[in-house]
């Protein structure tokens, strides 16, 4: 795999960088179900599916930082191969993945398309700013508990069906 260091600088006005920072920050406001994160010193694994740029940015963003006192790993993921070791999976435009207990799915908006049903958080660009919607349905299915602080900053919170 070619060097996936910093992608071309300023390629999109910082949009990918901002999303990468959000991805890291979200982990401080989410509780994973018991046992989902593995042993106390097992790494926290973030998967990136469909965007080499995001993989590069996220790898940079997490350097030297921890998630819930664990070291952080970032992996580039292929759509057809489900990776059971992931705790958070970022889906670029048009990517989908199936829901799984203990897996936090974060997707991003393609114009005119609804968020994948299994998403927990969905990025959108609103007024030139990166915002995110929270889908409580997805969180419930994955067994994740979201802090009310996260919900209060969200652009929209989609209530769980019924």
């Amino acid at each position, binding site marked *: 795999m070619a060097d996936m260091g910093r992608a071309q600088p300023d390629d*999109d006005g910082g949009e990918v960088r901002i999303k990468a920072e959000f991805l890291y920050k979200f982990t401080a406001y989410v509780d994973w179900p018991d046992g989902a994160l593995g042993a106390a010193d097992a790494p926290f694994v973030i998967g990136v599916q469909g965007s080499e740029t995001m993989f590069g940015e996220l790898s940079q963003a997490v350097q030297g930082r921890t998630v819930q006192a664990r070291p952080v790993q970032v992996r580039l993921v292929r759509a057809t191969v489900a990776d059971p070791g992931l705790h958070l999976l970022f889906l670029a435009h*048009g990517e989908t993945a199936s829901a799984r207990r203990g897996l936090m799915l974060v997707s991003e908006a393609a114009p*005119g398309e609804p968020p994948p049903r299994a998403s927990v958080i969905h990025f959108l660009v609103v007024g030139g700013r990166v915002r995110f919607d929270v889908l409580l349905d997805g969180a419930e299915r994955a067994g994740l508990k979201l802090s009310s602080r*996260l919900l209060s900053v969200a652009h929209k919170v989609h209530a769980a069906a019924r």
Partner: protein
Amino acid sequence: MRQPTDEDRPCPIHRRAGGAAVLLALLSAPAAAQDLSELSLEQLSNIEISSVSRRREKLAQVPASLYVISADAIRRSGARSLPEALLLAPNLQVARLNANQYAISARGFNDSVGNKLLVLIDGRTVYAPYFSGVQWDQQDVLLDDIARIEVISGPGGSVWGTNAVNGVINIIRRPAAETGSLLRVDAGTDERAAALRHGGTLPLQGHWRAYAKLQQRDATETEAGVAITDKSRRWQLGWRADWLNGDDGLTVQGDVYRGDTADRINGARNLGGVGTSGENLMARWTGRLDGGSRLRVQAYYDHVRREDAILYSPRFTVLDLEAQHSLAWGAHNIDWGGGWRSSRDHVAPGLLFGFTPERARQQWHNLFVQDELHLADGWRLTAGTKFEHNDYTGWETLPSLRLAWSPSARWQWWASLSRAVRAPARLDRDLRLPPKPPFIIAGGPDFVSEVARVVELGHRGQPSSTLSYALTLYHHDWQRLRSGQLPPNAVVQNMIAGNSWGLEAWGHWQPLPWLRWSTGYNRLQQDLAVQPGSRDPVGPSALGNDPPQQWQLRATLQPADRHELDVALRHVAALPKPAVPAYTVLDFSYGWHATPQLALTLGGRNLLHGRHAEANAAPGRSVFGPEAYAQLRWTP
């Protein structure tokens, strides 16, 4: 392909974060330059993505020749009208006829009665049913309300209807929650305008906005310097109320306008100007049903009047109801639905033309279904058909098959096969020249639909995050195109056929954070001929006057913080018949955001070439020369 929905909405203005000194400092530095790890969630939500550098279009997934004109591109180009905004689409031919009228088409057949393009504003079809074309001097919106314009060249697919033979233009305005107060003033050498917009909230988490717009244009001149009587004045106002949650909810909106051009005096006779007016009212509801499927229902009323004592004076009322249901079922994404449209019109004769009968009532019904099937390994098959019934030819079938392959998020290949139809309009069957017998042209009682069988091959690529491009090759096989006969009593027939083919290409490249290049090219070849047995004296040139190629090159720059510059070079090759020389013009627009509430723009259009014509025959046609303008936008 789904009906596109409104794009993501900006922060409603009443929720915009206040400007604390710290935040201001953060907001003014481009995101890419900051250390984001120090910011809180709220602060991260407030950083403005630097708009020049923002990757303009995500690689679109639609298996069609789609170009999206963003709101930002419209604003930066200094466009003052819908046709000026449409100049940004490389897959459209836009030819200005006079101060107020344009001929706009895609893939050929462009003239003032061009009928092969479907144009919608917020889902309301704006072509006039009596000739199946668009009167561009009657279509206007507050440009600052536009979220985006989607321009599809070629048959759009089963979701769109008849008349979408050469393309679909879908003008989408933002919801009321996204637009705030605005005062806009345009002052220029050739036209002036002022517009006001205001909005607020409604009970039950709704939002409303209302706008008013006033516009005045000077008369144009001929090559010899003789003034043409197209000086005009127009006002329009409109409103919108939304109760939306995400993309779903209820929208109700309407517009009203009236316009007039200078009186045309012929000796002692005053033939008046061209008076245009109209009102429309629309309601649309989109929602998710149990099970996750989506339903959209829409109804609108549109009443349009045009008074032209020289040509003819139509007025019509359209009522339209439609519904669309979208559901996912395994690997299938299915869209299906139908609609009903009714029109009642009265076409009063002018000096030159009349319609017989003067009044008519017509109805159209349609049913469509489309399935987008995700196959393995990035293959996607979209198959669909529309059945449309019109009073002249009964049921028409418009099948469409599209195959797309995306080996990765960066590349896509697509191919399509479609049958598209342009159903007869009153103009084809009922036109009489002159209004009373003996006739030179006597309509076409047996005129049937024009048919195109279309093959397209397209490719999109995004080799790096700073470079993207799209290419489309197309071939249209035309049957039963409109033809005439030798006068007197010439009857309109369907005896021209042939092929047209061509290439549409565009690309965007951002080599530096503050500089983005956009380029577009299109090439068209036509091989049409009158069929044996026809006595058509004019031939295929009566169907449209099209340049064999066009290109445009645009540079979008951010020379300094809060300054923007847009420079565009456009070339249109010579038009064959009537002969119009080729032209290359330069437009530029320089904007300065003096304060977060005040933006000033200075621009010039039609520079470099001197005066040029874009359509019609000399010596009576308008020519357009260099003009300058200034714009002020105040958003409190």
